[in-house]
């Protein structure tokens, strides 16, 4: 019952994000969708992933999207209606994608009612796995973040130099 509620919240937020005319309303309903997803993670017992979802998606990605929207000044409400002339093709594509996803999920082991024993994942184990088994991916992610930071600083510095 809880899962149904959170699933409805997530889907409603995502649908609303696509249907609102004003971009900032879309971002706010996207935040609701992220929150629903975080609630589903917490329902599954994945505390770290759920809380990291809130921290990163709602606290950083959504704010980044908001800043991007506000800095490009395209916040006029869209006056066209949502119905486009090629709606029949879009509906066909939607049903095709849904069919493929449904077939994949039915074919996988997720829908079988045999519950395998769930591993007890404590945060300690996530930390151990990151440092011991996944040390190389961790270092590569650190390198990627450093490169991104240096790139951002370089771009900002060049803009300052150009203004002079």
């Amino acid at each position, binding site marked *: 019952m809880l899962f149904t509620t959170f699933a409805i919240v997530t889907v409603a937020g995502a649908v609303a994000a696509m249907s609102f005319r004003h971009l900032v309303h879309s971002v706010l309903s996207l935040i609701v969708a992220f929150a629903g997803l975080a609630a589903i993670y917490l329902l599954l017992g994945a505390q770290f992933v759920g809380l*990291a979802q*809130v921290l990163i998606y*709602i606290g*950083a990605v959504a704010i980044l999207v908001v800043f991007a929207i*506000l800095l490009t000044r395209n916040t006029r409400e869209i006056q066209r209606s949502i119905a486009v002339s090629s709606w029949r093709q879009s509906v066909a594509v939607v049903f095709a994608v849904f069919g493929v996803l449904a077939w994949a999920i039915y074919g996988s082991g997720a829908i079988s009612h045999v519950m395998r024993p769930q591993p007890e994942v404590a945060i300690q184990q996530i930390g151990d796995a990151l440092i011991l088994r996944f040390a190389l991916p961790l270092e590569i992610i650190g390198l990627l973040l450093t490169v991104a930071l240096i790139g951002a600083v370089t771009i900002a510095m060049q803009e300052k130099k150009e203004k002079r």
Partner: protein
Amino acid sequence: MGETADQIFVTLQHSIAGYAPAGLRPVLSTMLAVIAILGVFALLFAMTTVLERKGLGRIQNRYGPNRVGPFGLLQPIADGIKSLTKEDIVPQAADKAVHLLAPISLVLAAFTLFAVLPLGRNMVLVNLDAGVLFFFAVSSVMEVAIFMAGWSSRNKYSLLGAMRAIAQMISYEVPLILASVTVIMAAGSLSTVEIVARQSGYSGILPHWFVFTPWGFAGFFLFMVAATAESNRSPFDLPEGESEIIAGYFTEYSGFKFALFFLGEYIGMFAISGLGITLFLGGWSAPLSFLTWIPSYLWFFAKLLAVIAMFIWIRGTLPRLRMDQLMNFAWRFMLPMALINLVTAGIWHFFEHGVLRWIVCSVVVVVSYVLLGRGLTQGWKLERRIYRFAE
């Protein structure tokens, strides 16, 4: 006797919950704890508003409010009646739904932060395995609420104030989290209950609080400065200062919604002070080993009141920082300092107990503080500073 007084609220909660059928018992006991938290911190908010105004007044050589009740102590009741009966003005161009949701989500997020703070022995609402991460996750929801407030008012000043507030909050989140990571490293767990348990021993009469270590000392000050910036308190209150930008992101809010914003901000301040106390000042443990007979929740609230007094003192004393000074301070001083503090905490952990690790860690912290401080303000010169005063 000391044990009973210490656990009196826990036993009260269990006895009241015992009246419910077995299925509803956890729900009822959680609801009792939630009602207690809401009541206590709302009362603390009321007390803080009047204490702050009187404190600021005395710092500025005047009385604070002194008309309502003895020494003006019933002022919050007058403020509450005023904010409830004022007309709720919403600008015509404002986005009504978002305008209404912003203060509500701010207050919701602020109160949710108390779920992982241990207010006393066995007195935490939820013992999450990832308590500190939960705290930072929910405080990032507060930033979204501030953006909603600033944007929905359709007012240039509100939007500007909200943008500044968000920029400030995300900048100061980095040293805040890095300072907390040193504590998490030392305690080996993200759970707030575990962190308090690590600080509960005594060597002689002195406690094992993390603030009494070199990295803990630096970390505590970094945390407190970043906490001041996170709650938009002076001297970091450029986004909401009255002489700067009218009222920033809550310009267009009147009456009860303004009171809700005020409440949300102060509750956020209490929550982040509570986290600082949990991480660095030993949570609910007593400062000296012969004082453990005083109940644990009294120690927590005493420390909280001391931290609030420090906030009020700093507000009354220091001038406001400009936006670029604020950002420079965060990225060019506090972030390197927090990273060096992280290294120092690691050094502390891997040396053995003794004088050597105290000396090494203190030297690293002090030298980096002096170098970074001089580097920022005087272009890396290390001479004597010459102060020029107006004659």
